[in-house]
């Protein structure tokens, strides 16, 4: 984290984590224990150090560049960020290449559609 949080920063962060698909259930459970009560997931494909694999189709081998991953998005208060990031890092890590990455963004505003509640109340 940068010093900006101390400088006032946003009070809410969006944590976006790319993980291996089969780790989803474990991560979800670990976050539930931290009190995280909401998240959004989406199927993505990606590559990084892990470079895909070859597939075979009708006698031609070819590179599939993108490997299936899952992206989690968790909006949370700034002060939780470190704990969430640590939990994901711990649980989603297999030590093998392709474990994924976590990206943290500032969030300007959150609105709960049902009630119109704002920001921290809306998390």
């Amino acid at each position: 984290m940068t010093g900006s949080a101390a400088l006032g920063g946003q009070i809410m962060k969006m944590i976006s984590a790319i993980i291996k698909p089969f780790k989803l259930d474990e991560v979800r459970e670990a976050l539930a224990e931290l009190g995280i009560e909401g998240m959004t997931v989406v199927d993505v494909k990606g590559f990084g150090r892990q470079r895909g694999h070859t597939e075979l189709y009708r006698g031609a081998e070819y590179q599939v560049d993108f490997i299936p991953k899952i992206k989690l998005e968790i909006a949370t208060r700034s002060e939780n960020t470190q704990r969430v990031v640590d939990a994901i890092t711990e649980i989603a890590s297999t030590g093998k290449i392709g474990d994924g990455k976590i990206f943290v963004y500032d969030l300007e505003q959150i609105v709960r559609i049902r009630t119109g509640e704002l920001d921290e109340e809306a998390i």
Partner: protein
Amino acid sequence: MENTVIELQFSLNTFYFLVSGILVMWMAAGFAMLEAGLVRSKNTTEILTKNIALYAIACTMFLLVGYNIMYVDNVEGGVVPNFGALIGSAAADADHALESDFFFQVVFVATAMSIVSGAVAERMKLWAFLLFTVVLTGLIYPIEGYWTWGAGFLSELGFVDFAGSAIVHGAGAAAALAGVLLLGARKGKYGKNGEIYPIPGSNLPLATLGTFILWMGWFGFNGGSQLFLADKSNAIAVSQIMVNTNAAAAAGAIAALVVCKLMWKKADLTMILNGALAGLVTITAEPASPTPILACILGMLGGSLVVFSIVALDKLRIDDPVGAISVHGVCGALGIMMVPFSNSDASFATQAIGLVTILGFVFIASYIVWGMIKTLMGIRVGEEEELSGMDQHDCGIDAYPEFVTIRNK
């Protein structure tokens, strides 16, 4: 003209064998679709590959040695068959073409093997499976088949298994069970504390199509097993078989539907599909002698039993992704033991003896063969392959490469 009448009878019987055989061959597609629908999409190409390859291997092995072992030049009432190759030659007074009989029989052995592929799906190595296919279809099935259908000792004993509740379905299930025990459950199927996690199949329309195909093919399976059509009494018998086969399947589906509704308040489609198949397996031991009402009752018993059996096997941590052991093994046994209710030639004792002999032999023989293959080359794919799916590992291509799937399921 007498000759012509006899020739016509020969032709009609032969045609009936051929049409029945085509219908049974079609069951290979049924199993392929059923299993492809009930596994996860990451293992779908592999299960399709297994299904078409096993059909091809079963046909070839049965041609090369299996048919001969099962039917040609055997001692009546014997245990050990006479080993030989190819299909022998026709008797002078045969009432149908020998080749049509072979054609009909060869597709049965494929059915037995198709049962296995479903139960060991999603974790069994492709090449280990194909090696086992060679042995089951070339040796194990022909030997036990000889005992009853090749005039061996079980037939002399009076064991009745009209179209193969035990000989085909039970045998397939016994071989499957042996494989499953040595193989273990799929990763993620059972939790550390005894939890059972369902692993839903990826494509229920395919599974339903597969069931309809099997239902259709069963008319050849049971109908053809009368082995003679071209006179009045046999024609009536074949018709009764068709009616009973259909009635048992329908009743099985209804029974499973009702049981699901009572137990879980929902209509679990995959259970209904298994219920229909369970009805079919149950009636297969004796589709000719029951009244249609009795056929319905037998179907209902099978269709109810299969639901409980699937749940029970799951509790025993016997992981069978498509329910093959319950459908073909448990209901096959049920069918065999029900025969004496409609067929007075059969007794409960001989039925039990036949059943235990066949299933026991196939189970033990299969266990040994699976065990040898396990030592030789391993039967289970590596953990990483299992997690990422067998399609990429064994086949090199996904079944639905363009579609986005939730991979963690």
